[in-house]
């Protein structure tokens, strides 16, 4: 079975705010096609302050769907609607001390139910803005729809391209066969042919490996360039990266937004490091900037 955190189990076995709120004035009903789960969220909102006084859920779904619903109601009670709209699915997952990649969509469903309920209160129509497909890359929780869209939008041609743009395939490599199948499908639709040996598409930061050793200034500039090229795919996940310092061959970075503290942060850093090494043709170590203070303090005492 899934390796659920204690927090998930706690919320599953003793769900909070189960059932419909009696005199609710906001209702959101959403379902996730990807596993058949569905959730109805009911809220009682104070009309003057727009504060959520009560929240209740009814869920048809698995352990993590029920736990996500329960924790969502706990998070939003007492918030104003505007505050509640800022709750991300990562917040829900974090409150649960993490979810398995296959189950992240349960937290997405929670956020969508919340948006739908708020839209319902405000008399707006809620439209779902993202479509979900089969989970392809378990290392980075990337689904088929995301990969397909990226392949279309950026004219990707190889598995390496897909990894550069979406991270999918950058870990254990078990999903490469499935990524190839997607490439084959999309390229055929575009009237092209999939060639596994095609050269990766040109990326702005892609430079041929440099033979002469880099000066520190050159190195910093190159690193900046590479990070710039990776930024779109990080931002697609609601995160970002910032270069803080370069000491020798070590680059210190700050992961911000959804990437900060997310389960994938370590993976993401490893991916950035690999990309840097490929482009720069030399060994580069990427370390979270939080490590830098430790380094400095060690140096200070010794």
């Amino acid at each position, binding site marked *: *079975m899934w390796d659920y955190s204690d927090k998930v*189990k706690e919320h*599953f*076995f003793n*769900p909070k705010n*189960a*059932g419909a709120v009696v005199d609710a004035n906001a209702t959101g*009903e*959403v*379902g*996730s*096609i*990807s*596993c*058949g*789960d*569905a*959730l*109805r969220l009911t809220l009682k909102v104070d009309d003057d302050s727009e504060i959520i006084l009560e929240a209740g*859920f*009814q*869920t*048809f*779904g*698995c*352990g*993590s*769907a*029920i736990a996500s619903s329960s924790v969502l109601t706990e998070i939003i009670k007492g918030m104003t609607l505007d505050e509640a709209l800022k709750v991300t699915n990562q917040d829900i997952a974090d409150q649960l001390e993490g979810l398995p990649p*296959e*189950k992240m969509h349960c937290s*997405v*469903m929670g956020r*969508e139910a919340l948006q*739908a309920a708020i839209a319902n209160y405000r008399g707006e129509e*809620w439209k*779902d803005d*993202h*479509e*979900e497909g*089969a*989970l392809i890359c378990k290392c980075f929780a990337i689904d088929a729809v995301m990969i397909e869209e990226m392949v279309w939008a950026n004219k990707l041609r190889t598995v390496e391209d897909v990894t550069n743009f979406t991270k999918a395939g950058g870990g254990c490599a078990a999903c490469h066969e499935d990524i190839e199948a997607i490439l084959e499908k999309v390229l055929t639709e575009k009237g092209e042919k999939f060639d596994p040996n095609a050269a990766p598409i040109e990326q702005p930061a892609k430079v041929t490996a440099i033979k002469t050793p880099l000066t520190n200034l050159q190195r910093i500039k190159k690193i900046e360039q590479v990070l710039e090229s990776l930024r779109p795919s990080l931002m697609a996940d609601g995160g970002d990266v910032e270069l803080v310092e370069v000491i020798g061959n070590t680059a210190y970075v700050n992961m911000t937004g959804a990437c900060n503290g997310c389960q994938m942060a370590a993976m993401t850093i490893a991916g950035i490091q690999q990309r840097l090494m490929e482009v720069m043709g030399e060994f580069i170590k990427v370390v979270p900037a939080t490590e830098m203070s430790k380094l400095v303090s060690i140096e200070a005492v010794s």
Partner: protein
Amino acid sequence: MTDIYLDNNATTRVDPAVVDVMIPYFLEQYGNPSSIHKFADGVARGLKHARQQVQALIGCEHDSEIIFTSCGTESNSTAILSAIKAQPNKKEIITTTVEHPAILSLCDYLEKEGYTIHRMPVDKAGRLNLNAYKSLLSDQVAIASVMWANNETGTIFPVAEMAAMANAAGVMFHTDAVQAVGKIPMLLQDTKIDMLSLSGHKLHAPKGIGVLYLRRGTRYRPLLRGGHQERGRRAGTENSASIVGLGKACELALEYIEYENTKVKAMRDRLERGITEQIPHCFVTGDLNNRLPNTTDIAFEYIEGESILMLLNKAGIAASSGSACTSGSLEPSHVMRAMDIPYTAAHGTIRFSFSRYNSMAEVDKVLKVMPGIVATLRKLSPYWDGNGPVVDPEKAFAPAYA
């Protein structure tokens, strides 16, 4: 009371008597059966004995028709790939929509390679239409592969009859009997089945040992080429300890086959009756008149399988579910979909599968906790209202699907 294991279709406990016969093959008779010294002396004899024990259980004519493999999946792959390699001109394969992924994924793959795959549908009770099957048999078909018993519902297909039909049309016939062997009696020599897969870990032998039965005279191409083991039909040094263990397990299965079909069946029936009588809005899936004696698959409407399993697990009861969530796949089990089980029920299916190690006392314990578990989850369900489903559930709750 200790935990209750009702997931025997997933895998079984190794019988202690099986473990006993295996130990010497790790510690004393560990020689390579091909070697000529006393560490290998008894191994060849042990393997031969095991082959005969398997032969006795499946009732085939010759012990040389038994090829030891590493698992049911390998046996299935070997059978299908052998058939298409041996008959390169035949580009069609017949199978069913409810096979195990060990067959279906391979067929999906072969489809990409240009093969035409006929996946026969089933009706709401999980049954095949033999007339439709007959019309598919032709000289273009390399192999028909049909499971003997379904792993989720236990539904038994008429494979002997289907093998005879295939034979009459000159088509090779394979059956994935991984769930059937040891649970129902069989006599292969009286059938036209050309190939059959079985797997040790479903009948109280260890994991990682399987058999491909290959009728003498069936055209064959090995999957693994190399040494002369298994007469060159499956190269690789024999897994002697597991083979001997599987032999013993087959001997025991034959001894217990009547027990399986009386006592084990009685436990299954009692659980099934108890649940369907006590709990509203649940039903048994599959072909109720044609099932393995140890399996029941029950759909609990308006709730989801993984949550049921988690609560069962908390109560010390192990079972499994066809819900999408337990497998991490997109859809509820392909078997439930093939039977057209409505989606609010398909996600809530629970399979209880028994073995000779279970007892009536365990059945009673499950019957005691099950109604509470279902009620707890229904209280959370948007499709449920107080004592019954909401009126017109599909309309009353119609979420926007993303």
